[in-house]
């Protein structure tokens, strides 16, 4: 329990640091949303100054930060100039969609990577391992962008899958099962792109982790005792190799978040990615800050879950935490 508490404190400090950092970066920015207005002869300089004052952009940085934290407590996270609304509600919807996409992709990728990686390690040097190594290497060198574009063109040409968005038009009229099916159809392509781009690295790590424990004396002893191979691999070896894999699980969420940015933009999935891109092009300051912080929250959350799983899975960490 104390371990959990300490981890949460650490995560909170990280998030605080990240928010300060992004604010500092934003202070370096030459120009802001209202600079574009200066080019417009119909808007007088006085209006722009008063607008800047209205959104407190003329205040010093620490004041702005405190005001932002204050609005964060109210769930607003600052104000979007382009959407003319608080940032919070804008981000929640997008963040939910990004979460749906990345969590599904993470689960599927791991469900595929674990057995394939174990199989590859168990047959090291023989043909399944060689075929898998070749396959992972060739997928590794294909840029994600190309993968996403190819899947998109597949969707366009075949017409099997919708080519963008979260739901079809007329989604509201569908029955519950129809709604579910519609979302699954829309999810298929972006999830496939994400899974394919993250699989090779995951398989390689699983193979390395399992391969490292396969030679261990305790496994040879277990083998000598006549324990079936499948049980040996999935119960004994996987348990012993769990530590690096669980850490990797935390990191894989971060990698998928970064990967999903591009996939979301290319496949027009209404997640954080397209919103961030729009905000960057429009210099919509608080939306950018909010997007970065939310994605950090996901990553920190993923690592937090990984830490908890490690605590549960690895007795060494439990005793270490207890003695501290």
């Amino acid at each position: 329990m104390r371990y959990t508490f300490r981890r949460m404190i650490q995560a909170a400090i990280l998030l605080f640091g990240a928010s300060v950092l992004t604010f500092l970066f934003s202070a370096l920015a030459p120009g802001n949303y209202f600079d574009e207005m200066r080019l417009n002869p119909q808007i007088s300089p006085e209006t722009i100054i008063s607008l800047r004052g209205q959104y407190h952009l003329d205040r010093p940085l620490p004041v702005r930060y405190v005001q932002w934290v204050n609005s964060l407590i109210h769930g607003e996270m600052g104000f979007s100039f382009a959407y003319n609304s608080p940032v919070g509600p804008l981000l929640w919807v997008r963040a939910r969609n990004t979460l749906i996409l990345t969590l599904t992709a993470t689960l599927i990728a791991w469900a595929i990577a674990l057995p394939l990686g174990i199989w590859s390690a168990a047959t090291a040097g023989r043909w399944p391992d060689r075929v898998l190594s070749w396959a992972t290497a060739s997928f590794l060198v294909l840029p994600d962008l190309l993968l996403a574009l190819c899947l998109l063109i597949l969707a366009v040409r075949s017409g099997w899958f919708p080519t963008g968005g979260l739901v079809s038009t007329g989604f509201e009229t569908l029955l519950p099962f129809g709604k579910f099916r519609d979302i699954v159809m829309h999810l298929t392509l972006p999830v496939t792109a994400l899974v394919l781009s993250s699989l090779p690295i995951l398989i390689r790590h699983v193979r390395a982790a399992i391969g490292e424990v396969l030679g261990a004396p305790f496994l040879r002893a277990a083998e000598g005792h006549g324990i079936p191979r499948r049980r040996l691999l999935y119960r004994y070896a996987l348990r012993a190799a769990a530590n690096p894999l669980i850490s990797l699980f935390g990191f894989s969420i971060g990698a998928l978040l970064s990967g999903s940015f591009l996939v979301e933009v290319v496949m027009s999935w209404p997640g954080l990615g397209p919103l961030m891109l729009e905000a960057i092009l429009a210099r919509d300051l608080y939306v950018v800050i909010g997007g970065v912080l939310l994605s950090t929250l996901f990553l920190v959350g993923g690592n937090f879950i990984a830490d908890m799983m490690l605590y549960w899975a690895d007795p060494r960490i439990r005793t270490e935490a207890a003695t501290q």
Partner: protein
Amino acid sequence: MKNPHRLGRWLVALGLLHAIIACAGFFAPYDPREQDRENPYVPPTRVHLVDAHGRFHFRPFFYGSLIREDSFERLGEDSAKAVQIQFFTHGARYHLLGFLPCRLHLFGTGSGRIYVLGSDAYGRDQLSRILYGGQISLLAGLLGAGLTLLLGATIGTTAGYFGGWRDALLMRLAELFVALPWLYLLFALRAFLPLAVSPLEAFLLVTVVIGTVGWARPARLVRGVVLSAKERDFVRAARGFGASNGYLLRRHVLPAASSVLLTQAAILIPQFVLAEMTLSFLGLGVPEPVPSWGNLLANLQEYSVLISYWWMYLPALAIVPFFLGYLGLAGALQEHANPYKMEAASLGGTG
């Protein structure tokens, strides 16, 4: 070691690939900005050795295309208009390696344009643009990785060698940077910098942004190596003889970190090239008319281009051999560094 030549082979292969891009002017038949508005989206030219009458020619040639009068629609090859391809011919002016004025090209044609990899919306030659674009993308990746490693090595060495509050502060900062999803951080940094800038400024901006985002991981690795290296007996002995910090760092500590840095370089360079591609693809990187692998792909965001012109995908494939090369190099470097690691372990070090 399994194969002592592996490292050398990857280095040679990568060297050749980079040499081709560095001498883009020679391998590219045209200037990358040269437009031909009458030839938009021309599919890759089919090069022949056997003509319509079944006769074999040693010199490759291609046919001009039959074009309908009232549109740009192509109806096939015009067997009356055969154009020979000339090798080592003079063509558009360029600067070899950026400074040697030169006109020699690997191949070219006397009349009629050859599009080995097709042409884009303005009739610019895709092959030339891919070759020149590689210069931008690879240079951004190389410089970015250099900057990252410089930052990582400096910060990691400071933290590991001097320890104390510097170590605590720098490593907390590194934790922070590792915790931020790097692509989002990259975009955020880019967001806070000016958008409408000249291609050169944009290139420098992108390189610096890419280079500053990723320092945390190499810094942590270097710190680990430095920590173990400074406690080695020969380093202590040298310190006992009165060696200065500068000497110890230069002579004993940094060489220990070099293999980590090299491996990191092989891992980071392709990642950073990809980062440049992503930024430019989304319109936040190097702008037109200067080609880069990213902005060459940008017009695939148009639906009509996406479904009609398959050769517009080719710039994405250009990075594949480089990826493969760096992947192999990273593997070979790790293998190369391993014996040292074994040795260090047997000597009681933790490197």
